[in-house]
């Protein structure tokens, strides 16, 4: 086993940590915005919903169902032409962020739809009975009522994104996962592997704690 010099190791870990944080947070924020919009569209175009629209609903569902099952490690490579068209390059952190955003957006869209559908129909009906327009009911009742479980769903996506960044090394995105694979796994450097894994665990734990706390606050439980 050839352990690397700590003087070299720590800056490497620092850079990787920053890359991971950058990839996760940027893609998380973008995917949350896009995913919530798609989730609202999915919810409100369902059969019997307030903006019922079979065409939009069918197409959107088909796209989501095609993209979501593709393993990320394949998707990130498969969409490289699209990545190049949008980002300008198909390698590097930016390219990784693009791919991460796409998978997370579709996952969040589904999670948002599920949580919106689960909102108590009675609350929705009360809104209608009070004379709120369908859009107003959507904005001031359906979304706020779904926010608690939605926060937990978003936390789950955040953690999944940390996991997915490990694959980002494939397109030169860097990050902690990539460091663990190249130094720890492929070069059998246990110190690097353990250090990196501990960092990832801490990151995930912190995210989960924060998510739980926010959800609890939103749920008033």
């Amino acid at each position, binding site marked *: 086993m050839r352990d690397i010099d700590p003087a070299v190791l720590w800056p490497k870990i620092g850079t990787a940590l920053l890359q991971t944080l950058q990839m996760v947070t940027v893609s998380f924020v973008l995917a949350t915005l896009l995913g919530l919009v798609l989730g609202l569209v999915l919810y409100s175009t369902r059969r019997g919903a307030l903006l019922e629209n079979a065409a939009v609903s069918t197409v959107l569902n088909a796209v989501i169902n095609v993209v979501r099952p593709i393993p990320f490690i394949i998707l990130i490579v498969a969409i490289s032409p699209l990545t190049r068209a949008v980002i300008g390059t198909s390698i590097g952190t930016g390219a990784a962020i693009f791919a991460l955003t796409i998978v997370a957006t579709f996952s969040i869209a589904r999670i948002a739809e599920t949580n919106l559908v689960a909102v108590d129909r009675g609350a929705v009906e*009360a809104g209608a*009975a*009070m*004379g709120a*327009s369908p859009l107003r009911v959507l904005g001031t009742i359906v979304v706020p009522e779904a926010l608690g479980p939605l926060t937990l769903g978003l936390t789950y996506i955040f953690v999944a994104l940390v996991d997915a960044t490990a694959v980002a090394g494939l397109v030169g995105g860097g990050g902690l996962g990539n460091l663990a694979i190249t130094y720890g796994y492929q070069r059998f450097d246990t110190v690097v592997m353990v250090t990196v894994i501990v960092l990832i665990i801490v990151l995930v734990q912190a995210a989960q704690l924060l998510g739980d706390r926010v959800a609890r606050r939103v749920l*008033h439980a």
Partner: protein
Amino acid sequence: MSAAGRVGATLAPGEAGRTVEPARASSAPGGGDPVVEFRGVSKSYEVDGRRVEALRDVSLQVERGDVFGIVGWSGAGKSTLLRTVNALERPTGGSVHVDGREISALRGRQLHLARRRIGMVFQQFNLLQSRTVYGNVAYPLRLAGLSREQTVDRVEELLDFVGLGHKALDHPSRLSGGQKQRVGIARALATKPDVLISDEATSALDPQTTGEVLDLLRRANDEYGVTILLVTHEMEVIRSIADRVAVMQDGEVVETGSVYDVFSSPQHPTTSRFVSSVLHHRASSATLSRLREVHTGRLVHLHVVDRDSNDPFLSRVAREHDVDVNVVYGGVSELQGRLFGDLTVELLGDDDAVEAALGDLRRTTTVEEAGARA
């Protein structure tokens, strides 16, 4: 139709209800100021290719200021009927009018505005979990475009009215069922609606809490003059707060009238069953056969309604015809300030004397045979 109603209708068609002063006195049948009017309302839909008639040609008028109860077993169509009042359900035939406007024909913004004049209370409360008690009551006010200051004042007043001023900042999840329903009532009253519709508001509550919530509804009717149309499967609810009642079965109204009339002289078998679920003036058939074993004389039910004289008819008849009267069962109730009741009595004496005594009793009360001698 009253003169006021006619004038109002001439001056402002469709808004006649608004131009007439609200008055509890106008609650007599045909009083002419209906706030809610069902005109031949039908509702049918298909379930698995089978046609279901939820409502069949229902016509009813709810007069301004009344507490009007609709009672029926589950599946009688009463909730469906209630939900046509704010167009949560639309009739497939006939029309529903609120304050003189045909709500069943309104759409879009017109409908949203009309709904703000109709408060609704739900069995499962349907509060917004994401908002505080304050936020729930404020919701319809913000919707109506009140300023923040006006909203604060009005919510404070309403929460005091329902006795939950100290819970304003709590979330519904922290409240008991009865408290949740009181918030529901405060929310329904927020925009000072003309009508409050209540869909089984007490069915999820225990008897003690039910009483409190019914008192609150009665108080809302007394103090704010809001007309209340409520649906229930519990005759006890009708007895405690309703002025008038309609009995529904299989999508039809089978009987309607003042609570006193319906309770004291039910005409339809379903009504009788509902009445006997809360009043036990008559012995059950099992009890009656047991009584017959002991009391071998002539057993009759005397139905006594509205006795305004203090004629001691039982002892008078007994003395005049030389028969003995033995009261074996009975019950008396008071409704809307008037008494009514049933007595099951045994008449002992000569057959001719008993017959003559019964003839006399029939002049004062309704007499029904309680079965032949055992």
